[in-house]
């Protein structure tokens, strides 16, 4: 089975702090892999490296057969790595549809002149983009909120919209940063089903940062555990559950930190 994304020896240094220490990570095609670890383990930092927000101080990232380590964020996004944010970062004063259209920016071609003149080509492109956006919104179960401002949506719908917006990038890899934070068990279950549907129907690989162990264990094919910037374990949910180091580092820590 081949990998769609391979990160090798990634290290990130913030001044004297080694936030991520030479971590290898790969995402197999059409799979769901999770990254877990106690707070401050470097999970989100690792995400930020994959999406180009931070440049790693060492290591390389290979995506879809090419090196993307030094690409700027928008190029990485354009090439098909989409993400959501731990704290929702929608464009609040834009409608759900517009949020998706922004994500399609790199796939649309209209320039200044064709937009001013509204050439037939530009109109067709806009119409098609809107249709595609609507289709994704329906897929995410928020089809009725097309023209509602993102900030007016309920918390759960905002989470969905964030995923929908990421999908509008037509990604091959989707990085979800704590997508079920603040959801109750029922909502989490709905979300798990949604993720499964995504992988099956949209041919996407998903990488998940998640604190909810129920979600992680039920949806992941492989789990990687980070602790203080280092990868301490990797394996199937069952292997991770029984890994002594993980229990010690993750659960032990969770006891006194939370």
């Amino acid at each position, binding site marked *: 089975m081949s990998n769609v994304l391979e990160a090798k020896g990634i290290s990130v240094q913030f001044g004297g702090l080694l936030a991520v220490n030479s971590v290898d990570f790969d995402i197999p095609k059409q799979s769901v892999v999770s990254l877990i670890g106690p707070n401050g383990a470097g999970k989100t930092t690792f995400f930020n490296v994959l*999406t180009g*927000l931070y440049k790693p101080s060492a290591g390389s990232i290979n995506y879809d057969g090419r090196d993307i380590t030094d690409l*700027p*964020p*928008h190029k990485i*996004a*354009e090439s098909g790595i*989409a*993400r959501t*944010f731990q704290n929702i*970062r*929608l*464009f*609040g*004063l*834009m*409608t759900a*549809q*517009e949020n998706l*259209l*922004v*994500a399609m*920016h*790199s*796939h*649309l071609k*209209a*320039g*200044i002149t064709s*937009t*001013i003149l*509204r050439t037939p080509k*530009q109109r067709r492109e*806009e119409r098609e983009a809107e249709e595609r956006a609507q289709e994704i919104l329906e897929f995410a179960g928020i089809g*009725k*909120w*097309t*023209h*509602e*401002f993102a*900030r*007016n949506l*309920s918390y759960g719908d905002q989470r969905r919209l964030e995923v929908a*917006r*990421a999908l509008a*990038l037509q990604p091959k890899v989707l990085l979800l940063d704590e997508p079920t934070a603040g959801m109750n068990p029922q909502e989490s279950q709905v979300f798990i089903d949604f993720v499964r549907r995504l992988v099956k129907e949209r041919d996407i690989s998903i990488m998940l940062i998640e604190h909810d162990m129920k979600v992680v264990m039920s949806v992941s094919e492989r789990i990687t555990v980070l602790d203080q910037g280092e990868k301490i374990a990797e394996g199937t949910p069952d292997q991770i559950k029984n890994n002594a180091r993980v229990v010690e580092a993750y659960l032990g820590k969770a006891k006194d930190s939370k």
Partner: protein
Amino acid sequence: MAKTPANNVTKSNRKWVIGYSIAGGLLFAIYQFLLPWEGLPIGIYDAVYRWMPPAAVNESLVYVMMALGLNIVVGYAGLLDLGYVAFWAIGGYCAGWFMSEFFYFLNVHFFGSVPAEAPGIHINFWMVLVIGGFVCALFGVLIGAPTLRLKSDYLALVTLGFGEIIPQVFFNGENFFGFNISNGTKGIVVVDPIPVGVKNLGPFDYGWKLLIFMLLTALLVFVSLRLRRGRLGRAWLAIREDELAASMMGVPLMRTKLASYAVGAFAGGVGGVAFATHVNGVYAERFNFAISIFLLAMVVLGGMGNVWGVILGAFILSWVNGNGLSAFGSFYNERMGTDVDFPSFTFLLFGLVLILMMLFRREGLLPESRLKLVLNEEEIEDAEAVGKKAK
């Protein structure tokens, strides 16, 4: 929460063309035909000339054009620009260079409006408009390329610097590395009239020029609205909302910001050329820092991001600044028998207005429909946090 989300934010609306045409036609008819009419009661004639002389209307329209350009940078893309007057200056000097006898040693004519033997470069006004626009857009990109990497306050500071540098270059431009590029403080006086086929419009053809300025303004409104609804406008808005998220969604920040600078500067160039024909010359001392702030105040007062608000704000402020306050002053002094120098209070008044706006109507006179949403509602999060139900 809204139940039926109507698409009233993004749908196209062409109704403004009708309203705008009526308003423009009416203004034109008043100033071109009604005022010179013999049968007009002298009282009305005096009143119009006192409160709203044609020159003031035209000048206001130039301010409207500039404010519309600044609105693209500040209102649409959310980039604070404190040096916008630079583009006004560059546009003005484009008119000075290409539409006057400034380069007396040359004799270039291109569909100009002056006799062929006149020295200097004389290019057709309509072409100079485009040239001025593009030269400004080019400068917008040149200035933007190094500065747009900065964020918020830092960007504002650097634009402030450029807004000072460029007018200063023109101010001292009599000897710019051995060349005279601006005639320094003397300015470039007498620019060519505007050719409109049947006649040439000189400095005193206010009525017709009003029509032309209305047309140019309409064009800028049209461009603003179209761009706003398209791919680029959405990207601007996204950057205004959340720059980081925008870049993570594949929006190239530099390119998109540069585009807003270029388009905004283009409008500035058009306004600059129009202004040169309005005052029939280019004068370096007119391009000062206060103008940048003044334009920014127009955009903020009217309603950032909403072209109609910006037009209203620009019209009101430039009217108060140019004519309104002095007219009111002389009116007041006559009635009350006092001798107060009202125009000297202009900036006091502006300061007061801005403070009041920030206190009571932060979103501007005619806010953008999106912004209305945020600025009018109480802090929802706070209300919810203490268990109050938000209205």
